[in-house]
């Protein structure tokens, strides 16, 4: 569906995309995950031929993409990172306008517009001008304008920024439904949870490079660290901490602020061993949590910095 090969995009001296490669298959929900400024938006804009790039090639639907490839553009839907709607037009007029650029037939368009309004739950706001909408509603309008014409390939650039959790779930649900109806989705975000929940395949980007690509299981398997264990303790003598550090298979042990945190190597399970030691020394402990590794851990390990902003 999408093939990007060796894409280089420069802004002056800054290399926004550095020999970027990407392949997306039909039917996927593909997640581009990366911190601010990692080049997600730039990558999408280059794929859509909205920006000139210095080097590389982009193929959509197996055909080279260019500014004049109107036949390809017809099959694509785009939801920009910034809300891009006419301030002068109402909700329904905006959706109708953007849908009209793709679907000239009036009767057909009417049904599509209604469907998009339902989809984004904007039914009560049809006649509202954008400036009367809250930030979250505006985001939803932005999405409705991008997908009303039922494209085969949808680009969504951080569509859920500033959307409340409830509407966010509604939107994610909708994206899943679009995907079930046959659309391929490219989704960027820096919310890991969202990407983890939604996407069938994920690429982690940093500084214009793809640092890792795969399903979330594959990504997590790539790293050394496995589960993370946290135990709340009132006091922990140094000697016991040393003993715990001695357990084979623990990659990292820290004690601070009355909490003991440990990371296992991938695939290890050492909860009972740790708790045994604590019991043996009669140390009482409070709550115990165990978390599977997150994409943040993946990012942290690969790049050495936190993904969270």
């Amino acid at each position, binding site marked *: 569906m999408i093939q990007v090969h060796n894409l280089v995009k420069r*802004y002056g001296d800054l290399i926004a995309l550095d020999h970027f490669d990407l392949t997306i298959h039909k039917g996927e929900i593909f997640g581009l995950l990366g911190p601010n400024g990692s080049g997600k*938006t*730039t990558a999408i*804009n280059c794929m*859509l031929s*909205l*920006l*000139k790039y210095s080097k590389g090639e982009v193929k959509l639907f197996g055909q080279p993409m260019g*500014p*004049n490839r*109107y*036949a390809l*553009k*017809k099959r*694509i839907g*785009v939801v*920009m*990172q*910034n*809300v*891009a*709607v*006419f*301030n*002068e*037009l109402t909700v329904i*007029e905006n959706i109708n*306008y*953007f849908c*009209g*650029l*793709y679907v*000239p037939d009036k009767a057909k368009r009417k049904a599509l517009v209604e469907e998009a309004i339902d989809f984004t739950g904007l039914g009560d706001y049809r006649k509202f*001008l954008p400036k009367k909408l809250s930030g979250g509603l505006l985001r939803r309008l932005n999405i409705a*304008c*991008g997908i009303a014409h039922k494209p085969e390939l949808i680009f969504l650039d951080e569509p859920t920024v500033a959307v409340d959790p409830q509407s966010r779930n509604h939107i994610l649900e909708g994206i899943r439904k679009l995907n079930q109806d046959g659309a391929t989705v490219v989704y960027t975000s820096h919310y890991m949870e969202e990407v983890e929940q939604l996407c069938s395949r994920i690429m982690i980007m940093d500084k214009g490079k793809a640092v890792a690509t795969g399903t979330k299981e594959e990504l997590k398997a790539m790293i050394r660290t496995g589960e993370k264990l946290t135990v709340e303790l009132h006091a922990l003598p140094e000697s016991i901490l040393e003993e715990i550090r001695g357990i084979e298979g623990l990659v990292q042990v820290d004690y601070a602020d009355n909490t003991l945190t440990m990371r296992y190597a991938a695939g290890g399970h050492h909860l009972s061993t740790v708790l045994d030691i604590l019991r043996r020394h009669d140390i009482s402990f409070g709550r115990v949590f165990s978390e599977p590794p997150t994409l943040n851990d993946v990012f942290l390990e690969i790049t050495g910095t936190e993904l969270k902003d």
Partner: protein
Amino acid sequence: MTVFKACFMIVKRHYAALALYFSIFMVLAVAMTALSADNFSTDFSATRPAFTLITRDGHTPLLAGLASYLREHGNEVVLDDRTEALQDASFYHATDYIAIVPQGFHDAFFDGEPLKIETVLTTESAKGYYADRLVTQYLNLARLYQAAGDIDEETIISSVLKDLSIEAPVEKKHFGAGAPVNEGFQLYAQIVCYIIIVLIILCISNITSAFRRPDLRMRNLCAPTKPRSFSGQQILCGAVVSIAAWLLLMTIGFALYGSQLSGTDGRIIGLILLNTFIVTVVALSLASLASLFIRSPNSQSAAANLLALGLCFLGGVFVPLHMMGESILTVSKFTPTYWYSTALEHICTLTSFGGDVLAPVWQAMLMQLAFALAIFCVALVISKYQNQSERFFSSIQTELEA
């Protein structure tokens, strides 16, 4: 036609601002016409222009009558019919107005194909202009009597002089089919040029600034519509809106002054309409250029007013051309509005429709069209250049990030 419709809706949503300008203008127009109607008569009766009548057509009763009529309202300065003498006199302000009656004038006049009287307006042109009006008035009336039927020349002249000696208000009633254009309507037609320019610039820049918002532009570029189709539909909408504005303003003009125009020659009205239509085209071209530089809604009305006021003052829309200084007039010639008011002035003083009488009218109209064409071309070149630089330097992206 999706884009076309959207453009319309954008204009519609801005109707409040447009309506405001519109009503301000209407008040202005009505007030100005009311004020100037008084001014015209008092001003003119107070001044006595120094005039010179050179006749190369012998001494006919027609001209004798004219001379006596002029003497009644001004002071005659007798000069020799030598180019040098005339030049000197005008240079040293010895006279305000020189009228040179060409050979064969008398016969042509009574054959119904009058020759033009060559005129030179000197010094303070207001006085010269007044003298010129006296001549036009006299000849108009004479033509009317002559057209009325078999009346001999002497009778015509005496009737004309009798009519003219009666003061202004009565004079109007005597005119038949060829009555001069109502002063109020002429003034309305003149200042309508200002509101046409303001309204059209506002409408067009509303449309273009909506479409030029960087993120919207990006989104539109994603669609399977050619950029040319986008701009084409925007231009089309601009044209339709302009024509609608023109129609509306003309309708209002007729509603206000229609009753006073019943006596005026239809061809003159037609020419006035044509002239305002041409200035509408000029306004459209101005708008397409100005909108390239107008980015924020705040600068919009300031820019529109500045441009329109500047052009209208320079072009003699608000201050009559004959009252403007020599040096300003040279600059004025480089504004399309100058040619608009020139054309209008010519049209309103027309007494016949021969080729050479109409020539200056056509010329002024062509000048306006030439201006429109030139401005369109400049706008086209600049927009090409702007689009390109946006792609090269990705300023779209920078604005997106902001």
